[in-house]
């Protein structure tokens, strides 16, 4: 049962990966300037039409998009994502060098988000319509409306420029990661606290809670033994989805703090139209996102006794 489920999910994930990479390929085809042109322009050469044609032939750009896509896919499966137009470095090497930094930032933030939002979300639900709830809701409302790039600038201004506690440009040290992480965590934790609050409130109104209370269980037992386990599945699913948000957010945050990850790498690549780098970035992000979601799904599947024992819902 479990194996079947995983295989089914893997197949659909494979389709997602193929679809997303093909779409980016298609969009590259729509782009106003092609690879050959960018190859010369990034070297400061204005190419002649003949040189362009020759380069296109060499890069295989004259072939239909579908042929090029399968060529690219074949190479990508062998770990070859092509060369950067800009500096000629293999895209794969550039990615593997910078990816760990981004992962550290993203998953560190995710852990922090969980640690912060779980207790606050539960607290807010327990104090429904009393002052802690109002306070938390007020603050989180500010958090979800906050543009994360502005938050990053404000935090830098306060902690680096005014107080001088931290550096404006962040490195990979713990101290250097505080501001980028705060920038990622505050909006996401705000959204999360609100979701957890809603999930807990919803469970609190279920009849089994009234039943448990009637049997004389105290609120703490009900919360820990009934309500929280029920909330775990939706929370994990949400976490999986927010990874996408987080990875997207790293592009902005890394740019603000000049953090050496693949987010700032892709923004730089976009400025010089370095298509292989952009494509490499997309495929890596897709793989990470899809894997994390697979894990989340498996966890939810396993965590639910009905699906685990193969009972049809």
């Amino acid at each position, binding site marked *: 049962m479990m194996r079947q489920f995983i295989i089914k999910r893997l197949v659909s*994930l494979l389709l997602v990966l193929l679809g997303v990479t093909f779409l980016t390929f298609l969009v590259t085809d729509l782009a106003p300037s092609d690879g050959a042109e960018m190859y010369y322009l990034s070297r400061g050469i204005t190419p002649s039409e003949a040189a362009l044609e020759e380069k296109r032939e060499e890069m295989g750009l004259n072939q239909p998009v579908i042929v090029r896509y399968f060529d690219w896919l074949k190479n990508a499966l062998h770990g070859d994502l092509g060369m950067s137009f800009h500096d000629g470095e293999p895209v794969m090497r550039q990615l593997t060098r910078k990816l760990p930094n981004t992962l550290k930032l993203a998953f560190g933030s995710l852990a922090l988000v969980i640690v912060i939002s779980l207790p606050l979300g539960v607290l807010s639900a327990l104090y429904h319509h009393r002052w802690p709830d109002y306070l938390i809701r007020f603050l989180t409302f500010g958090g979800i409306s906050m543009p994360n790039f502005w938050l990053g600038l404000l935090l830098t*201004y306060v902690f680096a*420029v005014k107080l001088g506690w931290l550096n404006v440009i962040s490195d990979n040290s713990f101290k250097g990661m505080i501001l980028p992480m705060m920038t990622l965590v505050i909006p996401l934790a705000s959204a999360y606290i609100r979701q957890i609050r809603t999930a807990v409130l919803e469970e609190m109104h279920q009849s089994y809670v009234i039943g448990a209370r009637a049997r004389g269980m105290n609120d703490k037992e009900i919360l820990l033994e009934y309500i929280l386990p029920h909330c775990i599945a939706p929370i994990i699913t949400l976490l999986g989805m927010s990874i996408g948000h987080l990875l997207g957010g790293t*592009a902005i945050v890394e740019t603000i703090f000049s953090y050496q990850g693949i987010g700032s790498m892709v923004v730089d690549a976009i400025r010089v139209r370095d298509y292989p780098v952009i494509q490499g970035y997309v495929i890596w992000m*897709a793989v990470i996102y899809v894997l994390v979601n697979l894990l989340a799904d498996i966890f939810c599947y396993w965590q639910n006794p009905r699906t685990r024992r193969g009972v049809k819902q």
Partner: protein
Amino acid sequence: MKKWQRSDLRLLIISGLAVLLFVLAILGEWLAPYDPLEVNYALSLKPPDNTHWFGTDKLGRDILSRVLCGAKTSFSLTLMMLAVIVVVGLVIGLVCGYVKGWTDHIIMRIADILLAFPDTIFAIAVAGILGAGVFHTVFALALVWWTKYARLTRSLVIDLSKKDYICAARLAGAGHIKILFVYILPEILPKILVNAALDTGSMMLSLAGLSFLGLASQPPSPEWGYMLYESKQFMQTAPWMMFYPGCVLLMTVMIFNLLGDCLRDKLDPKSE
């Protein structure tokens, strides 16, 4: 009874604020005390004072004027995008939910693929590949977000098609077009619009974020996200450059988020 009055009042105040924002955005060019594009190096990086309430930027342009004129850019882009997404999603959703079969199957699988992927990253990639530009960014975000509305519309249409009154309409000889536009569309439109209202804030943020990365609006035209991008390098000498555009963006997003919440509570009271 009393509770209803309070929530009505809340909705009234917040829609009033939203209308005020729209008026400011439309009248921004007339209200602006200076020309937002006028360069004057003598006034470079002036802190806020009586003549320039929000200060000036590196080129000596008045920030208040730029913020006011930037409102028009942000609002019109967000509305344009919202309109594109809602209309495209609505049409595709109506067709999928009503026709079903292969069309539905293929389109929904495409939507699955797009939904299964982080939207920001996809938008960054698409806008990046197509090149910086307002319309490319709108296109990139619309490419991801139509799916949400298509799915919502589709599921609403499928639910409605099973209702007796649709069946009765069909028996009475109503054509497909009439059923879709006279019986189904008015039923689902409020739900779709509430969702659109709820999404306005986050769309504005996404647009401004891409603009901050230099992917959307191009200098010198004023736009909040891009103004913040420009302000970054003057953080130490001219913090007002980043303070005011950000504040205005935050307040605008807050008002739209509140408006969305209020409309949802009003039209769909069950969800709270």
